[in-house]
């Protein structure tokens, strides 16, 4: 029972980290129709910037400076890159961000090298908050939970209580109408892209010490973020939150329990082949849940797309 609690906390941390990424992506995707493949690259950029800042002035200033820098870079890329490609249609836009992801990984390697960087959580949070059955819960994990909650509440406030939030919400549901209301749509797009990538950068600043700061960190997280927003559905902040938590817990619990497929197969009344080593089904009989844990979200996504193409909580079609 203690382990369930520990896993719930760990899954929450994973899910909330994912949410910081997916919230920005879902804003961008819903408004601009651009599935930003480079989103996780901005997350990586956030971690690298924060590392560089932390070597001069420590962790905390980086928490604020790095996301702003990333957001500015994101806005510049929207202004001078994406807006240009926009006229050719959605597929070239998608391909542009795809190429951008490749390029950003190379650029990061050019400046910071290919090694893992020693980007660490601040000393003040470097202690064990409490332990459950010998399992330590570091204070930094709690910090992540609170930071992500803070972001969610702030986003919710901006989207539901402010004027710009109402415009964005309208644009999420009816992308064409905002233009008719006389708003400067390119500027709104640039702003949304900047804020979205800035959020990704913030996620990088916070996740860098926890999950490691290395050139592969974007690719590792890249596609799972799309999976999250596709499952969550378009234009829904709540959808993004719930899908993130769902995936966080699925991947955590799949690893935590060694469910063997052999047990399932036997429960189904199948009998284990006598000569397992030469059976064509040997891999199925030796499979365990932790082996496939990380790919379960993809399976979930395919099922969702086939039966509910607008996602679990989506308000309109992809």
């Amino acid at each position, binding site marked *: 029972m203690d*382990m369930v609690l520990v896993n719930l906390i*760990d899954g929450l941390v*994973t899910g909330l980290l994912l949410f910081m990424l997916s919230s920005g992506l879902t804003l961008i995707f819903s408004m601009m129709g651009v599935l930003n493949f480079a989103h996780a690259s901005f997350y990586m950029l956030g971690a690298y910037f924060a590392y560089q800042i932390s070597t001069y002035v420590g962790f905390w200033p980086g928490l604020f400076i790095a996301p702003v820098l990333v957001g500015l870079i994101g806005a510049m890329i929207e202004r001078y890159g994406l807006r240009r490609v926009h006229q050719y249609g959605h597929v070239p836009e998608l391909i542009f961000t795809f190429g951008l992801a490749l390029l950003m990984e190379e650029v990061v390697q050019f400046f910071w090298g290919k090694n893992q960087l*020693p980007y660490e959580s601040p000393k003040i949070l470097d202690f064990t908050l409490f332990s459950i059955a010998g*399992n330590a819960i570091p204070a930094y994990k709690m910090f992540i939970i609170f930071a992500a909650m803070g972001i969610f509440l702030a986003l919710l406030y901006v989207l539901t209580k402010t004027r710009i939030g109402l415009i964005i919400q309208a644009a999420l549901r009816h992308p064409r109408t905002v233009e008719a209301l006389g708003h400067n749509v390119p500027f709104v797009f640039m702003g949304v892209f900047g804020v979205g990538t800035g959020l990704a950068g913030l996620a990088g600043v916070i996740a860098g010490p926890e999950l490691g700061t*290395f050139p*592969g960190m974007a690719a*590792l997280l890249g596609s799972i973020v799309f999976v999250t927003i596709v499952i969550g559905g378009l234009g829904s902040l709540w959808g993004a939150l719930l899908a993130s938590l769902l995936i966080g817990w699925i991947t955590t619990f799949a690893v935590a329990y060694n469910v063997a497929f052999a047990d399932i197969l036997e429960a189904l009344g199948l009998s284990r082949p006598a000569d397992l080593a030469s059976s064509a089904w040997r891999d199925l009989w030796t499979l365990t849940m932790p082996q496939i844990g990380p790919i379960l979200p993809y399976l979930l996504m395919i099922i969702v797309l086939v039966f509910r193409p607008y996602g679990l909580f989506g308000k309109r079609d992809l």
Partner: protein
Amino acid sequence: MRTTTKLALGTALALGLGATTAMAGTVKIAFIDPLSGPFATTGTNGLAEFKYAADQFVNSKGGVLGGDKFQIVPFDNKISPKESLIQLQVAIDQGIRFIAQGNSSGVANALTDAIKKHNRRNPNDRVLFLNYSAVDPALTNAKCNFWHFRFDANADIKMDALTDVIKANKKLKRTYLIGQDYSFGKAVAAAAVRDISAKIPDMKIVGNELHPIGRVKDFTPYARKIVASGADDVITGNWGSDMVGLGKAVIDAGFKGPIYTYYAAATGITRTFGAAGKNIIRLVQEGNYNPPASKAVDQYVSGFKAKYPNKDITQARIANVIRMLKAAMEKAGTDTDVVKIAYAMEGMQMDNFWGGKLLMRAKDHQMIQDVYITVHTDEGITHPLDNSKYGLRTEKVIKMAGLNSPTTCKMKRP
């Protein structure tokens, strides 16, 4: 239009590939390993070590066979088997007869197969495969062939040494095995289970699991299981970011016992573990220089660091590859006839530069050498890694590890 494209292609091909003419008096060694992409650090580090070893042991000592110099020719295989096979062909066309490769057993498997077939189909330009790092046991067992020589201790030999040390530590009663879900990870786990049950009957294996390679974002759930299992020690063959992620998560979760690893050092890993990994992370490897075995070793490592300030000697065996190749050429009296050189290398014995002896076992072309169990620490470190305070200090040396280890290899000789 199509014609011009093909013409352009032709020019480019001619420029790119044909521009090398074999210089007489040079022994070229193709270094086929990742020089770009995520594993480039390991590749470029190995390349520097090869160049340095060739300079130190051959070129600055008057060359081999009366003056022939060693030249290391780098080829970027992007850690892809397909690219490796293309670069192998390019290397052979440039007249290169010695192929050095190490990163990824998958690539080594592809190369050893391809070289075997190439040597059978093209008896006039046969090549030797100097495997300096790929440790999948299959390469010197089921898949062994006359052209392949392995200079690292294979995964089984290292595990044999490791379990000796674990057996000696009476405090360790419960072991947890975790590794990447692919051939090497599985080989490590299988060897651990075999050796522990044979040698340490009262040891309990409390966990034995594989995780997807390079796809785990957060190792915390794995760490939780390890802590919850009450394990005293952990054995893992993980490398790269999977190693860092696992190690950090396990330490963060409050684990205090030793973590026995194969590849948890250098290329940023030592610096990242830093104080957290002190006296917890342990490595099994085929050579170490803290403390240096001799003045020559000390000078060799210092010299390398002076020349490559951002790199480290991480693969001690590379020095032995160059030394043994040179010795075999001198014994065979040729630096071109690879069959004679291979015969000379079979069963060859010589001093190990890092201390002790070397034996290239004839029956499976597996190098037998001392294996070291080392610990990640900042105490008693002469040569730290990653420009940090931390490095690896020798805790135990197993002399001529795996000298009598069995092999299923049935070597066919030309």
